[in-house]
């Protein structure tokens, strides 16, 4: 694993059409597009504060429609933190994260030190197939954090990324560039009970 470089790389995985790009775009640009475009691979950069200095948060939005083991392996080995996205409207999309998690496990070895967030997106949808407790149970099993989000209504999106950064114990990172860590203290308030952190 690459040691403390100036980049902090977050990789977003998930099945096709679960809203990976929507989440990332909502976070990076604050917008939501109702169009329907599969992703090849996109990377976004944002400056965040890190250990009283600044560094670049690099978010890689991957494709969900086809898996190229080689490309996936490369993203995993280069990544510092991972967001595994499923859609609460599709049980299948949660199932599909399993091989990806296994892959992360295989490449990174001990995942407990790696920030991983399991995310149930589309929480605004009414046709739910995956209950919140099912997602929590899966996260428990994987020993990772869990959150439900909605890129459409902007629910828990910024929280997701901040929480992910908080999970990394090696660095002290914050989305706010003023350098003050606002993470831990107000966490409970921010998450409004929608998140459980192991």
């Amino acid at each position: 694993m690459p040691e403390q470089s100036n980049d902090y790389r977050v990789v977003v995985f998930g099945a096709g059409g679960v809203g990976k790009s929507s989440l990332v775009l909502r976070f990076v640009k604050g917008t939501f597009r109702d169009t329907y475009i599969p992703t090849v691979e996109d990377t976004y950069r944002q400056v965040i504060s890190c250990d009283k200095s600044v560094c670049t948060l690099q978010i890689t939005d991957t494709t969900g429609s086809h898996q190229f083991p080689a490309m996936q392996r490369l993203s995993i080995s280069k990544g510092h933190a991972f967001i595994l996205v499923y859609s609460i409207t599709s049980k299948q999309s949660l199932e599909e994260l399993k091989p990806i998690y296994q892959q992360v496990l295989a490449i990174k070895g001990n995942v407990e030190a790696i920030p991983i967030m399991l995310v149930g997106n589309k929480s605004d949808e009414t046709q739910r197939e995956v209950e919140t407790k099912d997602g929590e149970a899966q996260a428990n099993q994987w020993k990772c954090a869990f959150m439900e989000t909605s890129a459409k209504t902007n629910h828990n999106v910024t929280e997701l990324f901040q929480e992910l950064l908080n999970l990394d114990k090696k660095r002290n990172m914050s989305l706010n560039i003023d350098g003050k860590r606002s993470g831990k203290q107000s966490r409970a308030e921010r998450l409004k009970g929608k998140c459980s952190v192991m």
Partner: protein
Amino acid sequence: MPCNNICCGEEGSDVESTDVTSTDISQPFDAASPHLPWDHPFYDIARHQIIEVAGDDNYGRKVIVFNACRMPPQHELDHHKLLMYLKGTLDQYVESDYTLIYFHHGLTSENKPSLSWLRDAYREFDRKYKKNIKALYIVHPTMFIKTLLILFKPIIRCFSYCTFTHLISVSSLKPTTQPPMSPPRSPPLPNQVFGVSLIEGIFRRSANVTLVKDVQLRYNSGKNTVDFREMEDVHLAAVILKTFLRELPEPLLTYQLYNDIVNFTCTPTPSPVSLLNGSLVTCPRTISLPEENYASLRYLITFLAQVREINKMTNSNLAVVFGPNLLWGRDNAMSLSAIGPINNFTRTLLDQQHLFVEDVTKSGGESKGCFPPVSSTKDQNRDHLIAYCTFGLVYFDMTSHIALHTCTVSNISMLLI
């Protein structure tokens, strides 16, 4: 010899007539030719060209065509002889796999055979004939035939397990390269709006991984027992199709063309189609795509063109999900810099889908339409080869299933003819 050529033969059929002199009704004849000698006992049957051997399909199976519209009025035709002729024709092919296509159009009360004849016919055709029939296509079915088939489905099933019965309308057969795509049965799906399915994100969505593996295994074991209609998940069929392409030992667009395609500047001229069929003038050294691959690609692209739009899958969306399944590098490591051009190439192919059709008419309507693809299989081990060929066999059924669920309005209206 008078009148021997009164009915012009179909192009491509073998016009070699056998030289027979005896008048025994059981005497041999060349069923592939409608031109029997005038003194042959089947001469007056054969000249109507009701039964034709149209050639081989893409799996090398004989295709036997029965044209109801060529049946003369009842009193002009010896139906017993017709039955014998039909038997005689089939006898020559039933030992190996064959496909029967029945054109229902043109059957009127004038030329309709009697019920007792149908009963006789049913009795005449014992297991020998049913065993190897691989598909029965009923073209231009009437409501009556459709109802009959639905009623008798259980019975039909029990004597021909592997037979796919397809009901198709004639317009879906044009152009000749396009295999029938839309069997008009199966109940409406929950997503249907005015009878038109909207499968959002077809080919983008994923399917149950275990089911996909299971279906693959069943195909690869050579058992044609996969019925996508039972599985109710159209995405499963779509994923299987993509998986099939992705797991080919060599990509459909071939390693040989990899560099040409990745470096191809996609503008309307030169068209990517010209690169593939070798007609690119500016680049004479270009090696064109092998014929089977080209035909498969043409079929695939024509098929995808029908799927798009209504399912939110535009050409560029389809290209993103299909491009990487059509071409990859020899080292299997897909770099982002290559995916861009490959997807771009795929999108242009989809945009210029009409060029494929034109290309067919130019080459004389030759109708080699689909799988099995992949040219250089020499270095592949035999098992692997068998595995994906078997897989390719049902490609037909699979794509027809996807097409059924993703019908566009024009497809629907076609079915209502």
